[in-house]
């Protein structure tokens, strides 16, 4: 490339406090005009800090130790506050991760979009309005005029991220910093927003610095990738080369942590299903006030599902598909409006003969390891708690069981006396899994058990789960929006949309020959992986033939 770099970061080093930890260590990379560069790394790798430094956004506790950032030939570090403000927004735009909080909830969309334009461009109100409407139409809002007079809460997460993108691209910046722009979104929406972002930036010749933990997504859209680990750049290069021939062990680890399909398992022929759900209907009561009562909202419209002993059934679907509600109703947390749930051949209502058998043998792993553990209990107490209700078990046997299970999940030494806040997210999820399996249940519901975790941690937790499942042979209802994960763990897949099952079947059939349009759309949103030998992989996009019809 002969053109000079738009953004040139050289030897950037950031440190916390006076003598503290180095959080970004000698990081150098360049972004050329119109190019899309990805920074990939796990939480704590310093990728966000490095990118924010480009805009001069460094938290007060963090100190710049060395290095230079040149944007368009100017030294960002030497700029005055006034000059910095002039480039923020107008030349460098930023899209944040959380669409729910990055728009001001008390401001009309129109006013928010107008803010940057009014500040940086000398245009009259009518011209600005025309520009805004044009941009809103471009990002796919159906009613741009109406949107101007709306508040952010009236839009879904995906729509908000589009609006955020519109507000940034209105100023046609030379560089767009996108910090995990689609992480909080559904797989299908994720893809639409990414396509939109790439389309918009290409039109305007805007370069993009895309920060993400999702190697698959980065590889798909970026021409070059920078891999960061613990504050250092461990590898950078062209996307295809980096994927096909990863040099650094960490890059290889990241690639091998991406979910991959294992050979289909042979299960013993069907006996009595462990869980059998028939025509399950769940309704959430509408908002009730003193004087009004709105109609109840139906979350599940007659679901029927069987889980055989030892089988892992994955339930996939976007948010609002009712997959979590299904899990909660089988766990007994939500009362069905109609339909039956039978556990091991016996009804599960409280007072029935089979109730305690069900209650002791049906366990659940929750999504958020930060909220599923009581913060005031130690790990030992948390894992021991389910045993309280087991009769005919001596205290010594219980203690031995807790120690055994903690060792099984890899939290053997000294973890029992710690509190949840002292543990990392992955370790917490191990505790949650230990708590679920400590009674040796025959059925475990796992509600998005790995979606809050980093890529490599996710792979470890999935392996652990798989290992425990094989060892103890429990059946599992695995709820997830992540098809990659599902492909790795599931024996059978159930696809849900809007409270209904749209397709179900053995894993290989669903992934290789999906019948329903929604399944096809879900599949097209996530990359598949093929090993190339030498530790590398090649990405491929499923159902590439249907791509055009899906995007348009």
């Amino acid at each position, binding site marked *: 490339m002969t053109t000079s770099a738009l953004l040139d970061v050289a030897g950037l080093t950031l440190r916390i406090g006076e003598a503290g930890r180095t959080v970004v260590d000698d990081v150098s990379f360049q972004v050329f005009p119109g190019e899309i560069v990805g920074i990939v790394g796990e939480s704590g790798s310093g990728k966000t800090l490095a990118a924010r430094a480009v805009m001069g956004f460094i938290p007060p506790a963090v100190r710049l130790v060395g290095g230079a950032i040149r944007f368009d030939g100017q030294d960002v570090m030497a700029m005055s506050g006034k000059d910095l403000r002039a480039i923020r927004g107008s030349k460098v735009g930023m899209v944040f991760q959380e669409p729910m909080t990055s728009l001001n909830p008390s401001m009309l969309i129109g006013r928010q979009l107008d803010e940057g334009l009014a500040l940086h461009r000398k245009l009259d109100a009518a011209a600005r309005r025309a520009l805004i409407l044009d941009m809103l139409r471009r990002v796919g809002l159906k009613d741009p005029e109406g949107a101007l007079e709306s508040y952010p809460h009236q839009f879904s997460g995906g729509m908000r991220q589009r609006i955020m993108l519109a507000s940034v691209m209105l100023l046609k910046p030379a560089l767009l910093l996108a910090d995990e722009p689609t992480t909080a979104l559904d797989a299908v929406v994720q893809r639409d927003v990414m396509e939109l972002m790439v389309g918009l930036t290409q039109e305007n010749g805007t370069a993009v610095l895309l920060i993400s933990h999702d190697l698959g997504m980065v590889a798909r859209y970026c021409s070059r990738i920078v891999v960061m680990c613990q504050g250092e750049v461990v590898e950078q290069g062209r996307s295809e080369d980096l994927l096909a021939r990863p040099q650094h062990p960490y890059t290889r680890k990241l690639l091998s942590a991406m979910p991959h399909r294992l050979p289909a398992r042979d299960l013993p022929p069907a006996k009595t299903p462990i869980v059998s759900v028939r025509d399950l209907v769940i309704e959430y009561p509408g908002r009730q006030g003193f004087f009004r009562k709105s109609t109840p909202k139906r979350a599940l419209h007659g679901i029927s599902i069987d889980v055989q002993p030892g089988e892992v059934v994955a339930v996939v679907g976007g948010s609002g598909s009712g997959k979590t509600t299904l899990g909660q109703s089988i766990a*007994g947390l939500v009362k069905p409006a109609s339909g039956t749930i039978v556990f091991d051949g016996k009804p599960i209502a409280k007072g029935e003969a089979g109730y305690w058998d069900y209650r002791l043998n049906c366990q*659940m792993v929750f999504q958020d390891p930060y909220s599923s*553990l*009581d*913060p005031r209990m130690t790990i030992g107490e948390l894992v021991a*708690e389910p045993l309280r209700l087991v009769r005919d078990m001596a205290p010594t046997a219980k203690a031995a069981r807790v120690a055994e299970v903690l060792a099984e999940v890899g939290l053997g030494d000294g973890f029992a006396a710690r509190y949840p806040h002292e543990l990392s997210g992955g370790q917490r999820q191990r505790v949650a899994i230990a708590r679920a399996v400590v009674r040796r249940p025959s059925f475990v519901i796992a509600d998005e058990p790995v979606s809050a975790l980093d890529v490599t941690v996710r792979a470890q937790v999935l392996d652990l789960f798989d290992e425990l499942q094989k060892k103890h042979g429990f059946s599992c209802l695995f709820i997830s929006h992540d098809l990659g994960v599902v492909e790795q763990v599931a024996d059978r897949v159930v696809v849900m949309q809007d409270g209904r099952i749209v397709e179900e079947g053995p894993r290989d059939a669903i992934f290789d020959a999906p019948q329903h349009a929604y399944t096809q759309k879900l599949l097209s949103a996530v990359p598949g992986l093929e090993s190339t030998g030498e530790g590398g992989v090649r990405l491929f996009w499923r159902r590439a033939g249907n791509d055009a019809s899906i995007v348009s």
Partner: protein
Amino acid sequence: MKRPAPNAIIGGALIGTLLAVAATGALWTPYEPLKLSFREKLVAPNAAHWLGTDEFGRDVLSRLMAGAATSVWISLLTVTLAVLLGTLIGLISGYTRGWTDRIIMAFNDALLAFPGILLALGLLAVVGANKYGIILALGIAYTPSVARVVRGTVLSLREREFIAASRVMGNSEAFTMARHILPNCIAPLTVLATSMFGYVLLAESALSFLGLGVPPPAPTWGNMLAGSRPYIGQAMWLGIFPGLCISLTLLGINLLGDALRDKLDPRMRGAR
């Protein structure tokens, strides 16, 4: 063993002194707190009367010590009463939700709408102005705010996944409430209770000031402060010392409350 936080040391020292003084004051004072001595009225602080004497010649130090016992006892009992009652109401309201919650909270909010002191005044008129009347009146007056805080905490806690986890385990609702919800309410309750201790001390003083507190001649800090008003020009020590006692106690209580909250919260343990 790590060094305790400075707020724990200062707060602990202040409250320790207060409790020591209150305990001593209940048993022994340098002079008889109620003994009149018209020859020695309004004497400025000196070697014999360290904090001077009041308009009836009573020793201010002795009265402060005796008053400490009364004031601390009243505040302590009031806070305990309000916290117990409020926690119970808040737990029931927040955990059951629905119509029970709505009715309890409507009543609660109606009570909250009255200023605490006004409510206490009304109740005092019914139960009579004596030590236990004050405790009952103030206790009831401060219950609604405790109930509000506990209910709010319970509402946010019950949506957390560890409550669902407890149900899936098969724990009964009562066990879940006692094992998982109540302990997690302790941090906000500690903070509320300590700041309330201060308010109650002030409210008791205010009631005394209005003439509805512990009836004279028995000393409390509040009625000493109230009694000092006509003499503020001639004998300012009469007002200053009880006022200082109240302020220092409040300071100590608040510092100690912060330290206690940090100590009780496992998340704050070992953090720096």
